[in-house]
Each structure stands twice: as C-alpha cells, then as structure tokens.
C-alpha cells in the first residue's frame, strides 16, 4: 500500500543542511500493523507526516496505493484525508469548543455525509467505545484515555484504509494506554492498516512489525513472530 523509495527530508539553514530523514526505503502492505520506535528527534513524526501527506519529502519517491502522491493538488490531497488516511495524536487534538459528539461528527461533515446517516454512524461508534453517556460533554471533562478514545472514534468514522498514530499513548497511564492499544489491535484485525509511533517497548509489541529509526535512518526492521 505504501512504497517509500530513497526518501530524504532536510532543512536548510544559513550554513548547513540538516537531514531529518535520509534515504528511507520502506514498504508497508495493506493490513499491516507497524510500530515505529526511536529516540526523540530521530524523525518519527516527520516520517509519519510524510506518509500522511501532511509534509512532503525533500527528495525521493512515494507511491500510495500504487499512485505517486508527491506534489498533489489541494483537492486530491483533501480527498485522501477525507477517505483514505486518518490521524491520532499524542495531545488528542480534540476541538475544545465542541462536544464529544460534534468532534466525532466533524470528518463526516467535510465528507458530505447526510445528517441522519451521520447520526447513526456516530451513535454506532459511541456505542462501540462505551462512551454514549459522554456524548454531550466537552473534551476537558473527560479523562485522557477517554479523550483518546474520542480521538480514535473521530479518526475511524470516515472508514479510512490507513490509520496513523503519533504516540497515541504518550500522555496516558499504562492501563489507559493498554486499552487504546487493544482498540487499535482490534481495528487492525478488522483490516485497517495502522502505523503507530511509540516510545514504549511493550506497546510496540502490539505491532506485527517494528522499525527503529536513528538519526533519520532505519536501523532495524523486524517482523514479530506470531
């Protein structure tokens, strides 16, 4: 599904060029559950952003689902975000002025789903994540784990093929983190391709494959034996 070839990402400052990613070659197949690990500043977020079309590489080739996705027009890129790729963040990034329900509903509005279809889709997810009772609360009124559940619900409501999670458990206690990882695992079992970044060895083991980044290079790429 994802095919990165010789991806470089660097920033030019006055005197020097700093490489954040260097000659990355990576292929991710549909249905994979990939964990990305590495020290802080090693380029994990950058890699994820490039995969998620939020950032573009300085050089290299990127085929998504067989199509080159470099230099996309806004319309095409937005279409990918509406229908193909979703994100979960360490800081949850829910909209504070909106209720749980409204937060989850947002992507559907941009996708142009009709009001009563939206209602049933949101209701299904609230049900699935056991947060029906919280639907009219504002994000700050929830625990971190609950907020991240809402974040996941919002990410998957548009039925994306690819879910990108940047340290989704980074702000959570281990029990809540585990719950989130279980949820991701379940989604993967249902066929969703997931790439997640984590610092936590234990949570990394949820992935079927683990890559380790160091100074912008992939140091190791291991398939976990099942």
């Amino acid at each position, binding site marked *: 599904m994802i095919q990165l070839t010789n991806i470089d990402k660097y920033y030019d400052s006055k005197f020097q060029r700093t490489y954040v990613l260097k000659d990355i070659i990576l292929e991710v197949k549909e249905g994979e559950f990939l964990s990305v690990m590495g020290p802080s500043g090693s380029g994990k977020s950058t890699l994820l952003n490039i995969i998620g079309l939020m950032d573009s590489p300085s050089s290299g080739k990127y085929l998504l689902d067989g199509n080159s996705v470099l230099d996309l027009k806004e319309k095409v890129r*937005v279409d990918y*975000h509406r229908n193909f790729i*979703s*994100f979960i963040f360490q*800081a949850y990034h829910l909209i504070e002025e909106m209720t749980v329900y409204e937060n989850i509903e947002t992507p559907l509005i941009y996708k142009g789903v009709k009001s009563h279809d939206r209602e049933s889709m949101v209701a299904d997810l609230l049900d699935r994540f056991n947060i029906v009772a919280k639907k009219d609360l504002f994000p700050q009124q929830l625990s971190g784990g609950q907020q991240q559940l809402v974040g996941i619900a919002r990410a998957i409501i*548009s039925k994306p093929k690819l879910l990108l999670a940047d340290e989704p458990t980074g702000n959570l206690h281990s029990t809540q983190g585990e719950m989130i990882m279980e949820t991701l695992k379940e989604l993967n079992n249902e066929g969703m391709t997931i790439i997640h970044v984590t610092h936590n060895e234990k949570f990394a083991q949820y992935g079927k494959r683990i890559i380790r980044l160091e100074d912008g290079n992939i140091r190791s790429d291991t398939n976990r034996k099942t």
Partner: protein
Amino acid sequence: MRGILKSSYQNFVHRPITNLINLIGLAVSLALVIILSLYSFGELTTDHFHKNADRVYLYGDNNKIYTPGILKDQIDLSIPGVESSVRIASTWEPPVFQVAEHDPLKSDLIFADEGFFRLFTYKTIEGNPDAAMKEPMSLVITRQLAEKLFGNKQAVGQLVKLNNSNEMTVRAVIERPKENSCLSFNALASIATQKIMQPNEGEFTEWGWSNFQTFLLLKDNTNPQVTAKKIIALFPENRRNDYKNTHLIPLKKIYFSKFEIYGTDFLQAGDKNKVLVLILVAALVLMIALINFVNISSSQWLDKIRQTGVMKVFGARQSEILRNMLAETFLFFLSALFLAAFLAVIFIPDIQNYTGIRVNPKLMFSGPFLSIAIGASFILSFLFSMIPALRVSSSNVLDNLKKNLNPQTGKSPLRGILVAVQFTIAIVLIAFTLLVQKQVNFGSSSFGFNQENTISVNITPQLNQKKDVIRKILLDNPSVKRISMCQYYPGKTISQWGTQLETGNGKKQVNFDTFAADAQFFNLMGLQLVSGRFYSDDLSTDADKVVVNESFLRENKIDNPIGTKLLTRGNAEIIGVVKDFHYKAVNHPIAALAIRNDPSTSYCLVNLQTTNFNSLHNTIQKIKKEITELSPSFPVEIAFFDQAIEKMYQSEILFKKTFSLFAGIAIVICCLGILAMSLFACQRRVKEIGIRKVNGAKVSEILTMLNKDFVKWVAIAFVIATPVAYYVMHKWLENFAYKTELSWWIFALAGLLALGIALLTVSWQSWKAATRNPVEALRYE
C-alpha cells in the same frame, strides 16, 4: 510605579501587534476627537472673545439685515437703553489699494461708525484705532494687509491710494483675532470716509434706502426685546410693515444665523448642522476606538487571568491586583492621549488646508482642555478596566491556573455585539458619505445654465467708458463666440429691490433680486424661455424691458406676467419669463429675479470656441493683455466660470471633504479593530484549524468558517444601520433647498462596501491561518 511601568511594558511586548493596533487605533481616533472638538469649540464660541459680546446685538431679522442710515441717528436720539450704535457698510467691489512702488492689490474695505472698537474687541499692534475712526480718510488695517502693502516697514502714517483716486492714511494696525468671528475684514474706515469715497446723500437721509447693518451696544440690564420694539416704532408708518419681524440678534448668535449679504461679505456665516454632524462623527469615532479597546483587551483576559492566578498563588491581594490593572489601563490611555496630541499638532495644518475647517491648536494646551482630556482618560480607563479587572481578580485561584478555562470564554457574544455596533457605525458613515457625494454632484449638475468655456472680465471704472472698444477687441478675436455685458457673475452678490407691481387689480408690493444684462446674456448663458420673449439688442426700443424668472411669478402669484409693469424709474415692463436657474450659491433657494435691460455693467462674460487647452490659454492671455492696456490703474481679472461655479457649492464640497476624511479614518480604525480581532481569533484557533484540515477540511472551508462570524455581524449591522442611516440622512437633506433623492442603492452599496472591507481585512489573517501547514499547529510541545 516602576513595577507598573515594567509590567505594562512586558504585557505590551507580549502581544506586540495587537497592542500596537490597539494603541495606534486609539491614538488616531483621539487625535480626531481632539481636532473635531477644537473645531466645534471654536465654532460654537464664535465671537465670545469680544469683551462686550453679551451686550452687542445686530438689528434685523433672518431675511433682512439691511437698515437705512438714518436709523442710527434716530436710535441715538430717542432710545436711552442703547449705549452705542454702529453702522457698518461694505463696498460693492473690493477697492484697489495702491502704495508707491508696489503693484496695486485688491482687498476688502468696510466702513463703520466711531464706536466700532467699543463694540468689538481687537488687539492693536500699532497706532490708535479709536482716533482713526473719528477722522475722515484714515485707515485701520490688519497685520496681514499691512505686511502685503508695506512689507516689514512701519505702516502707521503711510499713504495709500484707493481706486486710483482717494488718498488715505494708515492710522492703526490691528491683529485679526485667533478666535472665530463673524466679522471678517482687512481694512476699516469711518463713515465720514464713506461719504467722501462713495457720495450718496440718500443713504443717510432716506428711510427707503437700506444699505447698512446696524449694531447696538445695550446698557446693562436693557431688555433687547423691548428695545427692538422701540426701534420698529422709529420707522415711518408706511415702512414699519417691512420691519415687523425684526429683533435684536445677539452677537454670539450672528454666526449661525442665515442671511444674505450683498457686496463684499464681511459677515461670515457658519453652518450649525455641519458642526453638529462633525461632533456626531467625533462621538462615533470615539465609540469605535473604545470598542476596539474593549475587544482587544478582553481578548487578552485569558492571559491576564492566568497571570493573576500566579500572582494570587504568590500572595497578591485582590486590591493590589485591581490597582495594578487600573494603573496599567490608565497608562495606556495616557500614552494614547499624548500620541494623539502629537498627531493632532502635526496634522492640523494639512487638515485645515484640505477641509477648510478652522482649528486653533493652541487651545489644546489650555488648562481646561488638558484637564478635561486627562480627566476623561482617567474616567474611561476606570470604566474599561473595572469590568475585566473585577472578573479577573475575583476569580478562583485554581480556575485561573487551569490550562483550559471554560470553553466559551474565547467566544463571548458581547464581542460579537460590539463588532456589530462598530459595523453599524461604519455602514451609516459610508452611506452618509455616499449621500454627501450624491448631493454635491446633484448641486453641481443642475445649475440650469451653460458652464463651459466661459470666462468673465471685470469691468473696472476705467473700462466702463470703453465698452465699445472692448466689444470690438473681443469680437475680432476668432476664438470668441459670444460676449455679454452684464452685472452678473456666478455666485457673486446681486442687488435686491423692493417696488410696486401694477397688476390687473391694483398695485402690489414686490421684492426681488435683480441685475442688469444685455440681450446676449440669455444666449450666452443658455437660459430657457418659458413665455414671452427676451429683449433685443436695441436699447432704444427695448429699454427698461425686464425678463423675470419662474420664481418671480410663483412668489408674487402672477398668472399673466407679460405686459405688467414694475414701478421703477422707467416703468419697467415684463416681456418674458425665463426658466429658474441657480444664480446664487446652491444652498440658497432660487428667489424672485428680474433681469433688466440696463447699460450698467460690472462684468463682461466671454464664451470661447476653443476646446484645446493650449489655445484656450493663449486666447485668455491675449485678451487679458489687450484689456489691461485699457485699464492701467485697476487690475483686470479674468475668472473662469466653472471655478466660480465651484465656489457656489464650495461649502458643500468642503463639507464633503471634511466628512469623507473623518468617516474614512473612522472606517480604517474600525478595520484595525477587526484586524486585531481576526488576528486573535486565528491565533486562538490555530490548533482547531489544523485539526479540521487533518480531518478533511479544504482551505476554502476553513476560510468560510473563519469569516462566517464577521459576515454575520455585518449582516446584523446592516439591518440596524439601514433605518438609522435613513433617518439621519433624511434629516440632513432637509437643510437643503435643493436636495438629491435618497436612493435605495446608497444603502445597498454601503452594506456591500462594509462587507467587502470587513472580508478583505479578515481574510488577510484567515488566509494565512487557513493555508498554514497543520503539522506546525499540531506539533506536540
């Protein structure tokens, strides 16, 4: 104190852009308020500076301020309540002043009785003005005229030749008052001088001849109403009816009374409506600025709240926090005030030049003005810091420290309402600007006579005997199409006659404006005949024939005018009726007018054929040169009709300039406010925008989201502004004798302009926010 200065500074640099917008917006609007209040103060206190201002009156009524010369003698004889009476008369044309070795120059001159300087207070620079008023052929001149005539040399004792015939001596130089005054003149001479310069016995002996303004200085505790009654009783019975509405107009009110004056106008008239409208504009500007202030500073409450939370944790008391906030706000207002005073001083000269309004910047540094300004700043800062201060300092410590306050804090409805109020003001101002423009266009497009390619040559006394020569010179010039000898010049003063009209059923008293013109006048001016005929060239058959305008018929209720006679010297007969045209300034209604076939001439109007600018210029130079040779002692002036016509609606043009300048600045300040608000809204929503984009929002959808609120406020403002603007505009138009219509498109255009301005301003920020890469916004710190 140092602590407050330091924390003010820190708070300022924390958000430099919004704070700078806030400060500059406030300073600019305060500068406007300062300028407009100085202007209004000056206008409203016109003539207050005369020591005896409370006891000085002008005798007359709003239509009629001309009185016979003999009236003064009668008043002095028989009305004990009058301490002093002064007649003032002006010359018909400004005389030519000649001093040895200097070019002759034209300047105004008025004549007055001895008591002039007892009634009116002027500062003497040199000489003795009182003595000058007692002697014939003595002049009192202003410093400005003295400098023009004599340069730096001493003026007192010097000889001046007037109109190439009368020698006069300068006896005193006075200073023109800094304050506003209804009297405006550069040279003053006694009535005795008038008798020598313009001998006209009847002016001083006959009740039927009204050529003077009569000013009175009443004794203390004399009732002006009673005095006026006594004065009316002095008139012979057959004249009394003409003066039945006369009263004593207090000196302080003359400036805002409306009347016409003929000859050179030494009496200046103000326009109270203009002053009131500009005071209103000042109030609106202040309101816009204060709303900006509230909006911008309340957007910083969140920061403040967190800050005071920290302060409280470290043991600050509530009263201390309150005091600090108040001091900080006051400091802010005070800096804005100083900046405003600075801006005002710098820009007053330009604004005066551009708008014609009179402002005395020295007033700004007078004690009362300073204390009002600083006091008002204190009260305003007190009011505007109390609300947020109370809210901030009484809030719970823990709440304050929480990272996320109540989610609704950032989006208070109050701010929306305030912005709607601002836009209401903006829309009203825009609509009003459009209307003023429309009224000016209307005024300049409907004069009812030809304006193009016409010039006028003033017929000086030396030219008066050489009219045939002039006629020949002009008509021999191939560029000249038509000429007319007449007493008319657009916007210039015209005499007013009162006489009897012989109608089918008896005689009828009629009053009308009148001037003499030859037969070419009608053609040259392109006037339209309504009935009868214009007179022909031949003075022998058409002598004393008169053409009247439609208003003449309307005012005097005449149905069949042709053939009726006016009982003037030669029994003038009406032979034609001309369509109404604006022969006076457009803010005066067209009145009854009679155009006489009479050889008196003050101007020669010349209609030129050329349209090319260069050849026009050459033609005019040639004409000027040829005619000047015929008039060696009196300057020959060539004036362009269209410039003269511009003067006819100059007060409208100046008002338009003044109003649109101030309205424009008000709108810019309004924009600064919403710019700051959109800046803040975008900053506040950076994260939300990032989230929405990641969730599939397009740039256009983000823009819509960000601009939607502002559009909503403009829409609400439009709904409120339309009836308000309608009312104000309707009222304003009532002042005009000839008014343009209030079209619906003015409101629509004003609304659209406001919307456009708002969208442009807001979109500048919104576009930046919407196109930002969400990665930056969502990076976890």
